């Protein structure tokens, strides 16, 4: 029997269910067994379903909720058995009661008088007929004299010929079938309104039903108020109340509420009917409160969104302002990684930025700013300071050996890889402003670009340094920063490394450098050019072959100076990176962007590492430097026959060593 079937025969809807009745039966198997076993314990034909949305939770057995969940909507109704039956018996005042019957499907018995109702109780020894019929309603009324409380009654229907329709379950005690009338005189008074003007409380009061004798204590009644907002269908129930008044809290101004009430005997389960509803509504006096609140809320939200947009768009700047980057400890021109490895040969002005793990871009920018500052200090002649900003990206990139394609800061310089911007003022004296360093820089910085090709296309004066297979920046072209002491003269003078000399030279002839620098990336030509230039300038020559030794450097970012051919070169070397590069490329790359021409003097002193260890002091307290050993060049051109230098001592001179050196 499905729910639909039950509703089809619904005769007398019952809104309330007795406790412990229903649920499981309505949902489960009992329906099929006998409809009489369902819901109501009255002599009626069972109700079968229950509305789970109803708040009569005390009636809804807690135990049987789970099965009900599967059946969200029920409506309680009576199943009508086919035979004549008693539909319901109700007492309103615990002193009288009425019973109703139905002929069922026996329509021939529907005429008045065709069915007669008999009852029996423990006081009577036999069945007695109904004391008073109300035939239009098919009702039997038991007055005071015929009503006994606390004793069981049983009902029976008899037709003609003494045909009896009797159900054993149609027995009850009068106190158990009491359903009081609804309370009367329901009205409400406003208690208070909240300061915000949005909520209010009301006091609802009523009177006990007149039919229930509560004054004498014959019936003890408790009440239940239910209310709902005007447009909802779900009623909210308040706690059972014994007094005839109750407060409803938290109603909203402007909404219309519907309130109704019902009651039952205390400690019993059957509720009476609901009273007629009353309507509660309080109209707010301040009509502008609501819009004002809305405006405030939206305004604040809009401001918050604006602030967040600003913050997110200017995030980088804000981060810079709030959390200025801490510059990593660096020695300009020195790659700490190389230091750690003890390769003093490679220390020559190799880029450092990338090797340290790549400081954030903005940090790099700042750092580059510092370098530029250095540049500025070093070269007072620098013109076009404004250009520095543009160039700094590229230059410092080279300096710092940024591994990846540069950020937008860098991109400024890298925008045109092929063009040769003139502005290179920032560069130190090493460079000719005309030389388009940036392009080559950019070219090399961009990963995977064949620097060689590009470099070659570039006109001669490119100084470019960068030449790496990878995007690592490369050259360090400013040799101004470091001046190596290549040797100490017996007279006490110090011979500086070509870097310084270069600087000195540059100041005089800046353009002369170009050809040097330009040549490196070319193949063997470079070396030849180098040679030519070398003689012109007493500068360190960048050994084109040095690139091969780049294998010593582990990271592509590092500029491993060409250890073999030009160990002395230290300064800048842009080392071509990893050894995977074909030997063919060797000739071309590897050239440190800096071409350090061999100067006759440098022949003597050049080719020394940036740092040498002071081995001892001679009698005149002169420092005796131990030039680092020179590694044998691997099948490189012998263009730069450099001395074989001993292996470089690792590390700087520490105070300990210094102390040990003193005679």
């Amino acid at each position, binding site marked *: 029997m499905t729910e639909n079937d039950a509703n089809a025969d619904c005769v007398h809807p019952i809104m309330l269910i007795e406790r412990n009745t229903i649920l499981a039966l309505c949902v489960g198997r009992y329906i099929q067994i006998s409809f009489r076993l369902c819901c109501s314990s009255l002599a009626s034909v069972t109700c079968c379903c229950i509305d789970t949305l109803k708040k009569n939770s005390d009636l809804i057995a*807690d135990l049987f909720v789970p099965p009900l969940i599967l059946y969200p909507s029920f409506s309680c109704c009576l199943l009508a058995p086919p035979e004549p039956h008693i539909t319901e018996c109700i007492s309103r005042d615990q002193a009288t009661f009425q019973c109703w019957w139905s002929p069922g499907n026996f329509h021939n018995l529907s005429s008045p008088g065709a069915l007669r109702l008999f009852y029996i109780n423990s006081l009577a020894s036999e069945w007695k007929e109904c004391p008073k019929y109300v035939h239009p309603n098919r009702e039997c009324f038991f007055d005071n004299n015929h009503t*006994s409380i606390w004793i069981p009654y049983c009902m029976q229907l008899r037709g003609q010929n003494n045909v009896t329709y009797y159900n054993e*379950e149609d027995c009850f005690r009068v106190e158990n079938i009491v359903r009081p009338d609804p309370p009367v005189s329901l009205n409400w008074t406003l208690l208070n309104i909240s300061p915000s003007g949005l909520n209010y409380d009301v006091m609802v009061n009523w009177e006990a039903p007149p039919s229930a004798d509560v004054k004498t*204590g014959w019936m003890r009644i408790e009440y239940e108020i239910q209310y709902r907002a005007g447009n909802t269908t779900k009623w909210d129930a308040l706690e059972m109340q014994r007094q005839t008044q109750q407060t409803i809290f938290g109603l909203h101004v402007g909404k219309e509420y519907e309130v109704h009430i019902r009651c039952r005997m205390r400690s019993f389960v059957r509720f009476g009917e609901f009273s007629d509803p009353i309507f509660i509504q309080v109209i707010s006096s301040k009509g502008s409160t609501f819009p004002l609140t809305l405006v405030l809320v939206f305004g604040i939200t809009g401001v918050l969104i604006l602030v967040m947009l600003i913050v997110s768009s200017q995030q980088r700047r804000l981060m810079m302002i709030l959390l200025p980057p801490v510059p990593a400890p660096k020695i300009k021109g020195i790659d700490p990684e190389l230091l750690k490895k003890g390769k003093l040969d490679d220390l020559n002005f190799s880029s450092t930025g990338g090797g340290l793990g790549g400081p954030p871009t903005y940090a790099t920018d700042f750092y580059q700013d510092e370098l530029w500052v250095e540049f500025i200090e070093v070269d007072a002649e620098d013109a076009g300071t404004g250009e520095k900003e543009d160039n700094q990206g590229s230059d410092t990139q080279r300096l710092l050996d940024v591994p990846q394609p540069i950020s937008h800061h860098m991109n400024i310089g890298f925008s045109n890889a092929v063009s040769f911007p003139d502005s290179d003022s920032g560069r130190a004296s090493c460079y000719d402003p005309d030389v388009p360093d940036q392009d080559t820089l950019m070219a090399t910085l961009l990963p995977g670009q064949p620097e060689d090709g590009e470099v070659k296309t570039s006109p001669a004066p490119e100084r470019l340094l960068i030449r790496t297979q990878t995007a690592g920046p490369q050259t360090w072209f400013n040799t101004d920063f470091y001046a190596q002491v290549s040797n100490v003269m017996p007279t006490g003078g110090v011979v500086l490394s070509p870097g310084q000399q270069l600087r000195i030279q540059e100041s005089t002839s800046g353009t002369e450098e170009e050809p040097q620098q330009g040549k490196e990336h070319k193949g063997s030509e470079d070396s030849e050019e180098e040679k030519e230039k070398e003689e012109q300038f007493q500068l360190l020559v960048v050994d084109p072959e040095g690139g091969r030794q780049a294998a010593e450097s582990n990271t592509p970012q590092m500029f491993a100076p060409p250890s073999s051919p030009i160990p002395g070169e230290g300064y800048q070397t842009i080392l071509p990176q990893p050894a995977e590069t074909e030997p063919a490329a060797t000739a071309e790359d590897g050239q440190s962007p800096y071409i350090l021409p061999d100067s006759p003097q440098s022949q003597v002193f050049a080719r020394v590492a940036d740092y040498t260890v002071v081995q001892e002091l001679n009698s005149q307290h002169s420092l005796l430097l131990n030039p680092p050993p020179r590694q044998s060049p691997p099948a490189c051109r012998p263009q730069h026959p450099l001395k074989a230098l001993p292996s470089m001592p690792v590390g700087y001179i520490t105070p300990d060593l210094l102390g040990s050196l003193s005679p």
Partner: protein
Amino acid sequence: MHLVSVMRRCVWAVLLWPNLLTSSVPLDCRQEQGGVSRCSSISQEKLLDRVIQHAELIYRVSEESCSLYEETFIPLPLQFQRNQAGYSCRTLPIPSSRSEVQQISDKWLLHSVLMLVQSWLEPLVYLQTSLDRYDAAPEVIINKTKWVSEKLISLEQGVVVLIKEMLDEGLLNLNHSEEALFQYDVQPEMVESVMKDYTLLSCFKKDAHKMEAFLKLLKCRQTEIYNCS
């Protein structure tokens, strides 16, 4: 929700404990005075109030324990036949309809109440022993039954004093029926025992309600404010 209401009522029962003590004051008063019939330490009105409260509480607790028992032990189909359980209740010769009740005298009211109370003293004791025999009877039911049994004794004493006070009768002998209504040594089967206990509980609930109604009617008559007809 049911549990909450049960707990609430238990709390109420605990809180009203002192109230029950006070209802026994007249007895102490009586004992102190060495058998003097009148006790002036508590007014008759207050005594009646407390007796009524006592009866209300007993009815509430009995109703709760009956429901608990029903939920725990009685299968659903039989629950709908509970009205039929009234058949097995012992009926006493006391009025049951309201009209009759309204017509009987105060004396008869009080005596009816006393009769009711006394008729339940022994069955409740039997009920306790029967519940103890269960394997897994809920503690709540056992405790409630015990509590009701004790309070019923107090109620009896109170009603006796009321009778003495209001009706100016001498102390009644609290002689209970010697007839043993129940057999304690025989242990019936589980199902039969369950049905019997269920019948006992529901019948006691009914009679507790009756006691309460009678006492309230008596109170109404005493105050004479309303027409308690």
